[in-house]
């Protein structure tokens, strides 16, 4: 980047050092100087990621009480619990950029922050628990494996850890799908219906097409992103098609075919109008998801106040005893 003409001399030098680090492939750490724009982009990406984990608890939480076996019930609770842990972990990671997680959380609650569009779709059958693990966690892994090499150190390290658990979730989800696929006709139908509903939204998880992705170029140059949205989407399709074939599931795209020349699975046009509607807040469950988070937050207010009051009383008591 050309130093801006009116930047102070020391900032020019700092910026040069930052750019040199990026060029050398070194990671940027919290104490390092970084351009405000870099800090902002990282804050945006990491907080969106944390919000997605938290909102993502809701569609799966919706089926915990109806899970059809004790083993499935336990693994679903554990999965949603992991998501809460990921959310907490990434919120804390975001704090290394000098923001307060409660401010970020308030942006989620008031609807000004974004989170992954996929969680604005409803979960309508037990098969959705398999398909979310397989496709949604599968797509997240494709994204996050690359993010594990992102230039910001704390985010990269968080991704390494989170990817391990996401891989486990994905295997678990795919195993649910494989069990349903080998099950009764009603179970197979339930699975196919879930795949039909989640396939296209899963492809949308990689974000807008490269030509419509305003942040991509800058993020790639800073090595925050390592691959473009379209490259990652293609990688996901290439990985997923054979998995669908292995369990005899149809993907709802008549244009899906193997391209011998590119060695890619070509796929049909994504309904970007739907994507942008969901992003704008008009997806099937946007209002419900935010309402659920707000209700939990509002219902919990007196609990948080009580915990603070109690902690203060205890601290005072300890002071008195010490005196």
């Amino acid at each position, binding site marked *: 980047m050309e130093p801006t003409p009116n930047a102070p001399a020391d900032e020019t030098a700092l910026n040069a050092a930052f750019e040199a680090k990026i060029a050398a492939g070194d990671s940027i750490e919290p104490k390092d100087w970084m351009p405000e724009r870099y800090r902002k982009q990282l804050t945006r990406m990491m907080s969106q990621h944390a919000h997605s984990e938290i909102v993502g608890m809701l569609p799966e939480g919706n089926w915990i009480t109806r899970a059809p076996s004790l083993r499935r019930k*336990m693994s679903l609770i554990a999965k949603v619990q992991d998501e809460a842990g990921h959310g907490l972990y990434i919120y804390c990671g975001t704090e290394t950029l000098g923001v307060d997680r409660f401010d970020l959380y308030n942006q989620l609650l008031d609807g000004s922050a974004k989170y992954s569009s996929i969680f604005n779709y409803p979960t309508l059958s037990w098969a959705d628990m398999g398909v979310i693990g397989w496709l949604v966690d599968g797509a997240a892994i494709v994204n996050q494996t690359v993010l594990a090499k992102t230039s910001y150190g704390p985010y990269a390290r968080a991704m390494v850890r989170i990817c391990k658990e996401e891989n486990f979730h994905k295997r678990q989800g795919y195993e649910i799908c494989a069990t349903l696929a080998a099950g009764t006709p009603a179970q197979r139908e339930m699975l196919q219906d879930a795949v039909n509903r989640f396939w296209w939204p899963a492809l949308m998880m990689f974000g807008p097409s490269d030509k419509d992705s305003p942040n991509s170029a800058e993020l790639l140059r800073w090595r925050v992103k390592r691959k473009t949205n379209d490259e990652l989407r293609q990688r996901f399709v290439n990985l997923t098609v054979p998995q669908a074939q292995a369990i005899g599931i149809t993907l709802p795209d008549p244009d899906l075919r193997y391209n011998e020349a590119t060695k890619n699975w070509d796929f049909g046009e994504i309904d970007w109008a739907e994507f942008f509607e969901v992003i704008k807040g008009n997806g099937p469950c946007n209002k419900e998801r935010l309402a659920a988070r707000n209700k939990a937050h509002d219902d919990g207010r007196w609990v948080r106040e009580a915990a603070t009051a109690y902690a203060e009383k205890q601290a005072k008591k300890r002071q008195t005893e010490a005196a």
Partner: protein
Amino acid sequence: MTAKAAGHDDEPGIAAGEAAAGTRPVAGARRAALGDPLVELLFRLGDDRLILGHRLSELTGHGPILEEDIATANMALDLIGQAASMLKLAGELEGKGRDEDALAYFRDAVQFRNCLLVEQPNGDFAQTMARQFLFDAYSVLLLDELSRASHAGIAAVAAKSLKEAKYHLRHSSEWVLRLGDGTDESHARMQRAIGALWRFTGELFVADEVEAAAAAKGAAVDLSGVQARWDTMVDDVLARATLRRPTDTAMQRGGRSGRHTEHLGHLLATMQIVARSHPGATW
């Protein structure tokens, strides 16, 4: 109206007090015959934990703070895991080929043996934690006794569950303290919750023929001893939390013989819907 319906031609002789051919005699026992006491005991233990774990799992993602979401999910996981081990053992001892899933998903409310306390709705966070605390204190004391049972299978599952139950008790009693001695509002809510749930605590300590018969088969529990220690434990936490111990002594009971509150049926309707909609399917 058809002639047949009008004339009641085919109806059994109800008016004459006669039993229709092949049906049961009209005069019966006051209570159903007792089955294997160890199976009954394991149903009680397993169902308590299954139903409470399910109740906690309803809250996943809706807690007052993120850290509490994680803790609640953790307790739900522990309890359902304990229930699975206990019901598995019950099924093996019963010998009718029912595994833990058959027992969890294909019994009706009247066949569940959990106490009334655990099936009560989550209510506000004070009610959730009051229910947890009252149960955890009982659970720790009961499992401690059972971990020394001469029946190896029951002793093993009790010992493993006891470790988790102690952690739960620490967590729930900390919340009773925080809410009881927090703000005026939290104090009032916790006092109300303890008051609302108190009538379901007496049942925990009522010894019946199952306890006596189970003791003879290697799983003895001294419920009056458990009650005395529970009283001390609960009184101590309530006092430190600046809460009053309720004075009402009228207790509800029935869970151990399948006579539940109306809440259980709704809980089971949700829990069992998918499994029962696809009988014979594997998941």
